């Protein structure tokens, strides 16, 4: 645990990791809020919020599922990510697995690295927990893998 590196808003509560062995999983088992989705989500449309990013993660339980590795897909997705946010999020939920903090220059050809990114982006699902607005502390629950980002009329 490198708590010193974890910003205050990324608070880790519980992390009960359920590992599913490598096998072809039935689709319906794939409940998911992936870190890739987390990398895109923001609370900026809330009244009074200017950036709303990144959202903190409080995890109740996560699930790890094997997903087919597509290196081309991963290397094309990487430039679209906020890398430091992904790194911190992976750290928060204990899935860092020595993923480097800095993005290397020639990641396209680094299969080991792409595999690690693949794992963090697509194989880790937050099943239950909550996302937290970094500015207001407003919590967005995640139930059954679905983040509820709905705002009340008075919050918009």
């Amino acid at each position, binding site marked *: 645990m490198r708590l010193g590196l974890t910003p205050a808003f990324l608070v880790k509560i519980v992390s009960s990791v359920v590992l599913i062995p490598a096998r072809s999983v039935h689709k319906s088992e794939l409940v998911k809020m992936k870190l890739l989705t987390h990398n895109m989500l923001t609370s900026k449309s809330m009244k009074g919020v200017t950036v709303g990013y990144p959202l903190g993660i409080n995890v109740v339980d996560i699930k790890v599922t094997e997903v087919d590795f597509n290196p081309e897909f991963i290397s094309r997705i990487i430039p679209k990510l906020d890398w430091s946010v992904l790194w911190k999020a992976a750290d928060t939920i204990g899935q860092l697995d020595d993923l480097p903090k800095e993005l290397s220059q020639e990641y396209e050809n680094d299969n080991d690295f792409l595999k690690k990114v693949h794992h963090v982006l697509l194989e880790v699902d937050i099943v239950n927990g909550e996302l937290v607005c970094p500015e207001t502390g407003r919590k967005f629950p995640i139930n059954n893998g*679905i983040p509820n980002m709905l705002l009340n009329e008075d919050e918009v």
Partner: protein
Amino acid sequence: MAESCVLGCESEELKFQMEPSGNSLKKLERKMRKCHAVVEKETGIPCSTSNPTKNVVVCNSGLSNGLTEEVVMESFMSFGTLDRIIMLPGKSCCFVVFKNLANAKDAFEHINGKLKIAQDNKPILLGYSETLPAVRPIDFRVKPPGLKVVPDFISEAEEELLLSLVNFDEDEGGDGVMKHRQVKHFGFEFRYDINNVDKDAPLEVGVPAECDFLWDRLKSRGLDFRPDQLTVNHYKPGQGIPPHVDTHSAFDEPLLSVSLSSDIVMDFRHRNGKHLPVFVPRRSLTIMNGESRYDWTHGITPRKLDVVPSEKGITANERGVRVSFTFRRIRQGECECIYKSLCDSHRRKAEDISNEIAAKLESTHVHQVYEDIADHFNETRHKPWPNVLDFVLSMKPGSIVVDIGCGNGKYMGINKNVFDMGCDRSFNLLDLCVESGYNVFNCNCLSVPLRDGIADGVICIAVIHHLANEERRKQSISEMIRVLRVGGRALIYVWAKDQNYYRKSSYLKQNRKNRKDETDITEQDEIKFSFDRVTLPIHTNRKQFLHQDLFVPWKLLNEGTISDEFLRYYHVFEENELDYLVRTFDDVEVIESYYEQGNWCIVFEKVK
């Protein structure tokens, strides 16, 4: 990509393609078969390579993609005497008829797949046909009702005088360099952001007095007209103006336009599907009254050539720089025309639902209904729209695609090489998505919880017709634009008010009665339902829509009988309404907009 290189345009200095090798020969044959099928679909005339005739079909090039009769003549005449050339307006093919068969075969063998006169210097692909299209040259005499074009209304000296009034420099583009043309306003500014004039803010410079001779001339011809607004448009060859109707509430009738410097063809379109190209010569005056002013859109297709009348029938005419002076009178008050379809005043009157009520209406008659009908909805929503599938499949590997209002996730998981995220207001529909293994989150399309500029593609299918006023519909579009990256594209589908635009859509056909005869219900038969302070009619399913804002019943069946009925709120769209909403944003460009089976559809790209 690879395909266009094989038959491509890399060696521009070579007008003829190199002799194809075995592999590319197969490719060529495949391409030709495709082209033949397109010709047959477009003209009804089958063509082949196996049965040579005197009729040679240019299958991939015609008037619609810039091929002119002159170029065809030049390319084919060296092989023998030509009987005639048939150019079809709006088609990407044309027919060359030789006097004898041997010449036709000779031309075919030398030219097919080699002569680069198709679009972007690509080679033309040929075929033979047994029959020829019945040539019906465009009748430029047929015009929309109320439209008059007076040729030679002004002299060349007067043309010079008018042109001297406005200076369009390369750098200083008058009131603005529009995407496709330059404009300058006098009297009142026409504001493209609000699609209207600010009637309380006249410009310092009014309509120039130099134009006064026009009003005297009109008076001598029995028309008493004096405009208080002038818009000057400057079009370079290749530029145009999208189909539009001059905002009803902004201007009275008639609309007058003087054309300078170059001839042009103006396209008039009616929502019944009629399309009339109107030839507007240089130095003519165009007068739009009545139906042509209120119920037809007019526009100029961006291209460098126009099909114009010639002695032989039709031919292509190169455009020069064209300047138009459009003179109008500002309307006082709202428009009271009878042509409601394109009338913004009518739209405003029909729609006066405040945000507060709209939110309640959507909550009760959209959100809650989808929660209640989610399972049944899921059973009935499986057949995807082919153009939506094409859009999703066209996304490049590694793209991020957002489906706003994803419902049961019908369009998710289709393109395996993209990351797709879906969102919807309905918890029950999202549960169905999760069962299918899709990435989803819950939100309202009015505030999408995604970072700016992260999406390569956005689709929003059958969603924003559930928003109860225009401000909210615009807000949802602005959210789509916000999450798109520059260069990213969005596709929107909404229900059309006119379910009969081309022919009966499948929605109407499902009503057996409609297959036989059109038994229209009248407004008197209608049942209305009141919600809060809003009273809206309840739609009769499988019928034409009589109103834009209404309730559409969803019936839950239990063993063949209706066990429950829910009223969903809908705002069904008029023609051009979706276009109009999208075009209010200046950071997007409309790629295409079309009608498909009772829906208005639009594809646009974020450009800045």
